[in-house]
């Protein structure tokens, strides 16, 4: 087997898994289940869509290995797309406008997960750590904001759900920090 074919065969399952994940999340039942709550929508559905894009990018990644110059552009793409979907009005719109919902299912894998996956392989440990640290603090600020908001931020979610999301975001941020702390202290990170 020549190399190109080998790569193709090896990466195909990842791409297929990505597509399957998006398709599974797009099923009406899954959508209803996850979008019922703010936690399900923001902390489960969006990260899973992101993961699907990441997996899909594995298939492309090997072919784009020479394009390491674009790693910063990829990370920035993911950053802006993430900020966009953190805007309450667009999350709200995804629930009321089918077109925006479709946009979410396309852009989160394509503009958040995939570019991040493509860039990740090119990034050094320091930059990866930097991205993790920023993600953790962003999540914490987000949780804090939602806990402090006196009124509903999203028209489609109850005030209580908003509060639950605030706590869940803080918990997730703490969980990730704890993981990294343990890994830093006891892990074999310096291999």
């Amino acid at each position, binding site marked *: 087997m020549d190399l190109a074919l080998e790569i193709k065969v090896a990466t195909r399952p990842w791409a297929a898994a990505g597509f399957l994940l998006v398709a599974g999340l797009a099923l009406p039942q899954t959508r209803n289940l996850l979008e019922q709550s703010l936690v399900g929508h923001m902390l489960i559905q969006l990260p899973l869509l992101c993961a699907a894009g990441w997996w899909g990018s594995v298939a492309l990644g090997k072919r784009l290995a020479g394009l390491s*110059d674009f790693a910063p*552009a990829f990370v920035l793409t993911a950053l*802006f797309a993430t900020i*966009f979907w953190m805007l*309450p*009005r667009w999350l709200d719109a995804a629930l009321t406008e089918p077109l925006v919902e479709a946009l979410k299912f396309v852009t989160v894998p394509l503009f958040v997960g995939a570019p991040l996956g493509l860039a990740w392989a090119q990034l050094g440990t320091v930059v990866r750590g930097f991205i993790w640290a920023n993600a953790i603090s962003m999540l914490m600020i987000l949780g804090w904001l939602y806990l402090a908001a006196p009124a509903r931020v999203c028209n489609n979610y109850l*005030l209580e759900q908003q509060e639950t999301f605030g706590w869940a975001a803080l918990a997730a941020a703490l969980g990730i920090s704890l993981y990294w702390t343990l890994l830093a202290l006891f892990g074999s990170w310096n291999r």
Partner: protein
Amino acid sequence: MTRDKALSAAAIVAAGLAVLWLATDGLAAFTAEGARRLAVKRQPKPLPAVEFVDHNAKRFSFDDYRGRIVLVEFIYSRCGDICLVLGDSFERIRAALPPDTAPDRVQLLSISFDQTDGPDDLTSYAERFHADGHAWRIVRPVEAKDIAILLKTFGVTVIADGFGGFQHNAAVHLIDERGRLARIYGFSPPAAILERLWTWL
């Protein structure tokens, strides 16, 4: 090669900022509520022809109020929290307007979006907040199907609160003398609304 790196990153930053600028109406609206307030302020919105019935069983439509300013709030009669504030702010607005001219020029409408609200429910709500039935009417659409049309046009989202009640984005909606939804105000305090009414009266 480093040039490509910098250029591509700069291009993404420019594109990303442009998208975020557009997506927030120039950093002016981050929530759906902010977006709908900004949208009607920039472009007043025509309203659908809906027939209402008030707590005295009288029928009317928005068109009957051409030439007046109509203030609209959405309520449901069993509401215990936000509607109390809404009802209270309507009561204060009404009390602050000149009693002789106001009823002919400013109309207050509390529209129920709860299909189960019957005439008795509207009446008891009216009594609770001393709505007189003329300058301030408690109403519901005659046809239940018009509720969804109204909510969609006004941009009001109503969701069940899990305790048999509802949560909804509460605000005071101002319909101008040409019958268009022209402004949406935070319901408390009503100072901004009163200022607008006084300059108009």
